[in-house]
């Protein structure tokens, strides 16, 4: 019995005394009217009520104790990573099967013996931890990519008193002191019989420059092939890029080998590094690894041919030379063949125009060819124009800058096919009254003419540009896009762009664009608008990624089958003001070209998105992002099953992990049950349940009081007191 008075004890004593006194006084009064026996009866009833109330003030409660006995909880962790699917050794079956046999088979299986003594929970540990029952254990497969043991032990927390791990030691472990659970490690797999050569790591730049050597560092690890010389091959598809031999000096040795090649083509290159499988190798899938490298231009190479020395040439040259990413090779026709030279050759600085070399051999080394007020007839065979057309069709860029020498001679030539404007075949150059230009509808958003991110500011900027003194009168083609046009009733295209084959083409129908430079300088607004226009013309023509409406950032580490792959998508800042929400879409195509499930989510930033997908097979995936400003496609290589897997058993690693948790590494001769005694005592734990039951809150206590009061009232009434 437990007492917890609701009032201070002294107050209860006073109340008791007052109650007793009241009873005595009541007895005296009642005896005078009813006699002593009846007075005693009524007073006893009243006394009973008072005593009960005093008793409740003392708040008595009953305590009930119950003793329980429980088993110690233990966790059995079974490594289900890929390496557990490798052969256990000379014995048949995989390491996982060896572990299962240890747990399930035998006269009295280990799992059964443990269950008799402890509360056993079985878990498969892989990319995540999963509780298993007996049936699930039989069908468990070694398919998980990696095991993070630290995380697994952390999630078990303090609920378990011990963990038993069955593993080959190929798992991630970072000792951070957070685990309080002792671990008993039971090794599976045999180190002595394991033979393997694997590509453990590849370090390669994600971005490479065309024409510059790319260095790839390949780390190779081997088990059991001491003294063997093996070839290491770097391939793109079936094409061998380079190969090197490497000799394995000792087992478990890691060798880092540099492989290099010079990329010649722009774009994404999907490469593979491989070593031919050797006799007796336990695992062949880790003999190759894939990587992707994006090849970009080191410098944008421009070939500019100018029909004569001019302000246009000088200002364009200044703009190109001002940009360190541009490599300009220019030829200016300083004299026409009809011109007379009055001096011997040693007094001339003129050089021959190497037309043959450039247009039949070197053309593909350029990114952009510019004809600046250049009439080809006196210098070119029509074959060279065909070469220019083929150059553009295959992805090169071409630009024509206007002037009196231009256009009239190109009608009916291969150049006419690729231009975004129509040629009349007449002399169409006018140098009459100055002509103002204005942005076309397409020009308001096009990256070339979008000199300012703000649409209104951009329009104002173009309105301020000084008029042009000389323009070529041209007609637009349906296939082209006019960005700037003359500000007159029947507008003429001034700046037009288009595509031909894989290449891009631009026509600027004036030799007076330099006035946009000096005109803005005269207004005190500097030269940035002209320089930016020239830079953007070049970058748009050469498909420079910095002008792409969308930029995709691939994950830093190559993904693998079954893993979530995330890509970051960023819309170009300049398009933000005109980019309505909801016009971006993501499509992912698997190596077979089939579209697969993907997700696109917004981030905290309005112009940033995150796309994700789960690859189901290895190979090259195409990622397409579509916006109203264009489409961007990137490729990503997903590693195949087992790539980079070091499958050798690592018992020493298990030993280290067990020691760091305060547990034990079991060798084959050790008795697991005996070892466990020292950690969890082998006996069942006891605990006592104690329950407090308050008496006054029971219904019958109130009933007794009411009964006593009712009896007193009844007797008083019967005996004529009420």
């Amino acid at each position, binding site marked *: 019995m437990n007492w917890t008075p609701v009032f201070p004890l002294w107050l209860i004593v006073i109340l008791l005394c007052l109650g007793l006194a009241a009873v005595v006084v009541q007895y005296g009064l009642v005896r005078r009217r009813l006699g002593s026996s009846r007075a005693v009866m009524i007073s006893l009833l009243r006394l009973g009520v008072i005593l009960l109330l005093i008793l409740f003030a003392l708040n008595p409660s009953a305590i009930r104790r119950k003793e329980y006995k429980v088993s110690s909880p233990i966790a059995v962790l079974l490594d289900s990573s890929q390496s557990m699917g490798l052969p256990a050794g000379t014995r048949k079956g995989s390491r996982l099967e060896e572990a299962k046999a240890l747990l399930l088979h035998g006269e009295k299986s280990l799992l059964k013996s443990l269950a008799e003594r402890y509360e056993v929970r079985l878990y498969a540990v892989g990319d995540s931890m999963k509780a298993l029952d007996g049936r699930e254990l039989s069908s468990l497969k070694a398919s998980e990519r990696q095991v993070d043991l630290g995380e697994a032990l952390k999630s078990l927390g303090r609920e378990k008193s011990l963990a038993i791990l069955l593993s080959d030691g190929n798992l991630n472990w970072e000792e951070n002191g957070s685990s309080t659970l002792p671990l008993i490690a039971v090794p599976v797999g045999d180190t002595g019989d394991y033979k393997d050569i694997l590509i453990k790591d590849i370090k390669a730049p994600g971005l490479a420059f065309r024409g510059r050597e790319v260095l790839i560092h390949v780390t190779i690890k081997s088990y059991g092939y001491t003294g063997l010389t093996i070839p290491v091959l770097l391939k793109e598809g079936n094409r061998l890029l380079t190969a090197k031999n490497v000799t394995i000096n000792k087992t478990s040795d890691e060798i880092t080998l540099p492989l290099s090649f010079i990329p010649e083509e722009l774009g994404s290159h999907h490469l593979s590094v491989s070593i031919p499988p050797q006799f007796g190798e336990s695992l062949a899938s880790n003999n190759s690894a894939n990587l992707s490298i994006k090849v970009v231009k080191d410098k944008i190479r421009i070939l500019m041919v100018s029909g004569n020395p001019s302000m246009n040439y*000088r*200002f364009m040259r*200044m703009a190109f030379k001002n940009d360190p990413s541009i490599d300009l090779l220019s030829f200016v026709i*300083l004299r026409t063949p009809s*011109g007379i030279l009055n001096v011997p050759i*040693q007094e*001339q600085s003129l050089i021959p125009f190497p037309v043959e070399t450039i247009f039949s051999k070197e053309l593909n080394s350029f990114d952009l060819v510019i004809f600046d007020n250049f009439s080809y007839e006196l210098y070119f065979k029509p074959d060279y124009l065909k070469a220019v057309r083929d150059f553009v069709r295959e992805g090169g860029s071409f630009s024509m800058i206007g002037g009196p020498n231009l256009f009239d001679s190109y009608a009916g030539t291969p150049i006419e096919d690729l231009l975004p404007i129509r040629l009349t075949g007449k002399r169409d150059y006018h140098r009459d009254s100055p002509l103002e230009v204005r942005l076309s509808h397409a020009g308001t958003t096009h990256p070339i003419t979008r000199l300012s991110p703000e649409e209104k500011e951009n329009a104002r900027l173009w309105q301020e540009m000084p008029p042009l003194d000389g323009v070529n009168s041209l007609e637009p083609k349906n296939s082209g896009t006019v960005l700037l046009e003359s500000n007159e009733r029947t507008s003429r295209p001034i700046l037009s762009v288009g595509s031909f084959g894989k290449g891009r083409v631009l026509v600027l129908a004036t*030799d007076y664009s330099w006035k946009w430079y000096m005109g803005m300088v005269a207004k005190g607004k*500097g030269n940035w608008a002209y320089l930016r226009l020239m830079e953007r013309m070049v970058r748009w023509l050469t498909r420079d990624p910095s002008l792409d409406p969308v930029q995709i950032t691939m994950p830093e580490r190559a993904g693998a089958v079954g893993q979530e792959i995330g890509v970051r998508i960023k819309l170009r800042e300049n398009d933000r003001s005109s980019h309505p929400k909801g016009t971006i879409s993501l499509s992912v195509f698997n190596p077979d070209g089939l579209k697969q499930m993907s997700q696109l989510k917004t981030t905290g930033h309005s112009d940033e998105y995150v796309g994700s997908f789960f690859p189901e097979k290895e190979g090259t995936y195409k990622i397409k992002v579509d916006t109203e400003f264009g489409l961007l496609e990137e490729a990503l290589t997903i590693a195949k099953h087992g790539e980079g897997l070091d499958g050798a058993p690592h018992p020493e690693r298990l030993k280290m992990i067990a020691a760091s948790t305060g547990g034990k590494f079991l060798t084959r001769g050790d008795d697991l049950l005996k070892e466990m005694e020292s950690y969890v005592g082998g006996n069942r734990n006891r605990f006592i349940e104690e329950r407090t039951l308050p008496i006054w809150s029971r219904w019958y206590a109130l009933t007794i009081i009411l009964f006593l009061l009712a009896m007193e009232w009844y007797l008083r009434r019967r005996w004529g007191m009420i």
Partner: protein
Amino acid sequence: MGLGLAASLLFRRPETLLSAPFPQFFFSQIKYRGGEWDPNPQFVEAIIEELELRTSIDGSKERRITTLSDPDLFFYPFLYMAGKYEFEPFTQQEREILKQFLTFGGFLFAEDTMGAKGFGFDQSFRNEMKKILPNHELKRLLPDHSVYRSFYLIESIGGRQKVNPYLEGITIDNWTPVIYSQNDLSGAWSKDRFGKWVNECMPGGEPQRSSAFKAGINIIVYSFTSDYKKDLIHHPFIKRRQNL
């Protein structure tokens, strides 16, 4: 009436042409205050004829007279300034305009037609340049400068007189927006309306005149091509010819 029209065409003021569109090359001559701003009024025709004969540049024989406060100044490809005598200092506003013009891509060819070092036009011009571009010195252009090889390979500069066998200039980065001569090139170019040379070239005679024309053409070509001749592709050719 016919005579009147002919006279008006013959004696029309060049300034009236300013609103017309600009040909590819033309001289825009600065008319300044004080001194003698136009010492060789007949220099244009011969050099333009020579320019069109030798090069692919389309030139205009129409000279434009301008001032530093002209709103069209920035659209003149080739600003020309000549004189014999000391002239009135430029105003601060004029200096600012010229500084802006020269710093951002404009070009000025100036010549002292008297050839007196440290006196007259030479003194005034050098003072003004110091004030306009104080951080850039007017100095001799070395033999490997692009102006000596922009069209002809030149070793010495001719002119009506031979004060300096070289040109001077102010170079900003790789561009020389100011080129200065004291040899009176325009004096050597000047022809009267009957086609006779206005001035004799001393002391070298006609070879000195020929050299003046070459220098003039090189300066004009340089104003359109900048350091084009410094591009690597030209090196072996120029070196081979210099060694001939």
